[in-house]
């Protein structure tokens, strides 16, 4: 009886332990689920604010447009319907506020009671019109034609070059500038950090005495413990003004500032991983090299570095991954201009910074909110891919050794 009870207890405990160990897997699956469910919404809705519509004259053959085309129309970059496959009629822009240009206050009546009729009349009488107004002004006699807006496709989302999710009349959701901004800052950071990190890793693993190493290594690892918001603050008050003075810029918040801050943050990751790889070089190989008359330095760059190349690569890739996902520090020092970067001395904006800066203002469940989750998906996919890549690189390394 007693042993039976004990066995049951053991079983119960084991299943509790098993459940706990499933926590991380469940979390990863839930993260994927929620990101993609919320993010997918952006591709199923029309990119126009709820409760508003775009209408054209009934005789206008154009019935469907892309968000970017509509934006060009309202920016007056496209001024004739013939550019959009319609007739050769100049485009007349109309927003609700423009109504007084066409009708006097008496004609509109008290409290704009005649507003729906007048809009209807205007659209019916102006062949080239494109009107943006609230759908509560649409009544039964509406003679215009509602313009259909193409949904955002995944391709458009990735390839459009403008990110302006709160734009009127239609949101512009091209993440290309954000992806470019993220890659620029991260690659810049690695270019700065890699040589420095390698030098430090070589020193720690091959040159430094044990005592020096035991002293320096925890200090370097301490760099990884400093919160990113503190790095951001340090960057804001020290590095940003420094860059502004050094290059004589109007603003110091630039891609370069982001890269410098990220480089400092990536150092401990790259150093720790490459140093581990270098220390794994078999003693026999090093001794063989030294015995053949090679100097210590020749042994390092002809034997140790080639041997640990894949470990160093893994460290660098992981460093890039960290840099791509870093939010607060980048948000605080890069100036957050959503344009395709042209120079390291210009402001840029990254994907994580965009999410952090805009999610607070995006109404729950709206298009903007969903677009930010879609950005989260992109970020997740990139970092997931990078983790996999590191896995492959390190596995190849361990296979080589056996």
């Amino acid at each position, binding site marked *: 009886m007693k042993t039976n009870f004990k066995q049951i207890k053991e079983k119960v405990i084991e299943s509790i332990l098993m459940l706990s160990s499933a926590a991380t897997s469940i979390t990863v699956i839930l993260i994927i689920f929620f990101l993609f469910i*919320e993010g997918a919404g952006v591709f199923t809705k029309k990119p126009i604010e709820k409760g508003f519509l775009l209408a054209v004259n009934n005789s206008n053959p154009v019935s469907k447009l892309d968000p970017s085309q509509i934006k060009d129309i309202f920016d007056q970059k496209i001024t004739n319907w013939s550019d959009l496959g319609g007739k050769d009629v100049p485009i007349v822009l109309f927003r609700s506020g423009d109504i007084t240009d066409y009708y006097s206050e008496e004609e509109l009546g008290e409290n704009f009671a005649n507003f729906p009729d007048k809009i209807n009349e205007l659209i019916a009488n102006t062949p080239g019109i494109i009107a943006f107004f609230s759908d509560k002004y649409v009544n039964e006699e509406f003679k215009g034609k509602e313009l259909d807006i193409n949904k955002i496709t995944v391709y458009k989302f990735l390839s459009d070059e403008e990110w302006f999710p709160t734009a009127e009349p239609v949101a512009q959701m091209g993440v290309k500038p954000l992806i470019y901004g993220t890659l620029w800052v991260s690659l810049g950071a690695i270019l700065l950090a890699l040589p420095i990190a390698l030098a430090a890793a070589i020193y720690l693993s091959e040159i430094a005495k044990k005592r020096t190493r035991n002293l320096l290594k925890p200090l370097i690892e301490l760099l990884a413990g400093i919160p*990113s918001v503190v790095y951001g603050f340090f960057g804001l008050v020290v590095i940003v003004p420094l860059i502004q003075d050094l290059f004589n810029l109007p603003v110091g918040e630039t891609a370069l500032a982001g890269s410098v801050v990220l480089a400092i943050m990536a150092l401990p990751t790259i150093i720790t991983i490459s140093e581990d790889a270098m220390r794994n070089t078999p003693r026999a190989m090093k001794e063989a090299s030294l015995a053949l008359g090679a100097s210590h330095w020749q042994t390092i760059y002809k034997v140790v570095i080639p041997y640990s190349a894949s470990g160093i690569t893994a460290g660098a890739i992981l460093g890039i991954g960290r840099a791509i996902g870093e*939010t607060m520090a980048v948000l605080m020092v890069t100036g957050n201009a959503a344009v395709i970067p042209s120079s390291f001395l210009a402001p840029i904006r990254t994907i*994580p910074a965009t999410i952090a800066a805009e999610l607070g203002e995006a109404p729950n469940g709206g298009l903007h909110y969903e677009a930010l989750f879609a950005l989260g998906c992109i970020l997740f996919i990139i*970092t997931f891919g990078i983790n996999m890549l590191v896995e492959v690189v390190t596995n190849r390394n361990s296979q080589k050794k056996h």
Partner: protein
Amino acid sequence: MSTENNLAKKKRRSQKIAFGIFTATSYAIVGLLFVILAFIVINGIGVISWEFISAMPENGMTEGGIFPAIVGTLCLVLVSMVFAFPVGVLAAIYMNEYVKDGWPKKIIKQMTNNLAGVPSIVFGLFGMALFVNKLEFGDSILAGGLTLGLLVLPVIIRTTEESLKAVDDTFRQASLGLGASKWETTSKIVFPIAFPNIITGLILSIGRVSGETAPILFTVAAYFLPKLPTSIFDQAMALPYHLYVIATSGTNIEKSRAMAYGTALILIIIVLISNLLANALRKYYGKKVKMN
């Protein structure tokens, strides 16, 4: 003969230059750490006073203290650890003591690695979608604490696993040989030996949790809230978010600079203490175990 000498000289010289560069670089990195720390300490030390850590922010966060932010961060640490520490430790025990090598273990390991690689802002998005919206906790300490807990779960699992691995197998064999069950062996023999190292992981996670900003942006953090939270369903201020706010978008950025330095210093102190404590603990018990 002379060319050989030249070659040797050249060899020696290039080694000298290379090693010089490496040494200088390493010390420069450490120097950089001290520059960052010194910069914040020097600018922040004058701000720190009893009032600073015990009073409410005043005058658009340009004066007064950061008491609610400290309390908020403490609450977040508490909630996240109450959740993540037991789950992480139990998961690690299962991974190290129970499950045999094979594909289930590989998958769990891989998933834990993947979770560790997820950017913190994605945790923020996830926490908002699941805890704030789906489970309707709202912006609350509970939602933020759970999000942070998930973020540090891989850290706790990893450090616990390492601590358990360090326990010599003879302890397990002796216990099992005396007729103890698996759980008795784990809970009475293995766990107590590994415990100091597990606590090291806990301390490091506390340091990490108190400094994270992105996951709490949309799950708990309040811009300005001059009262203390009364339950885990309340919003709260938090140190890292407070620093972000007064450094970038406060009512008067220039005037609140001093407050920002002070807040940054408090954050640095928390991180330094948790790191030093963890290192000291590791060293102390490392020696003790060797003596046994």
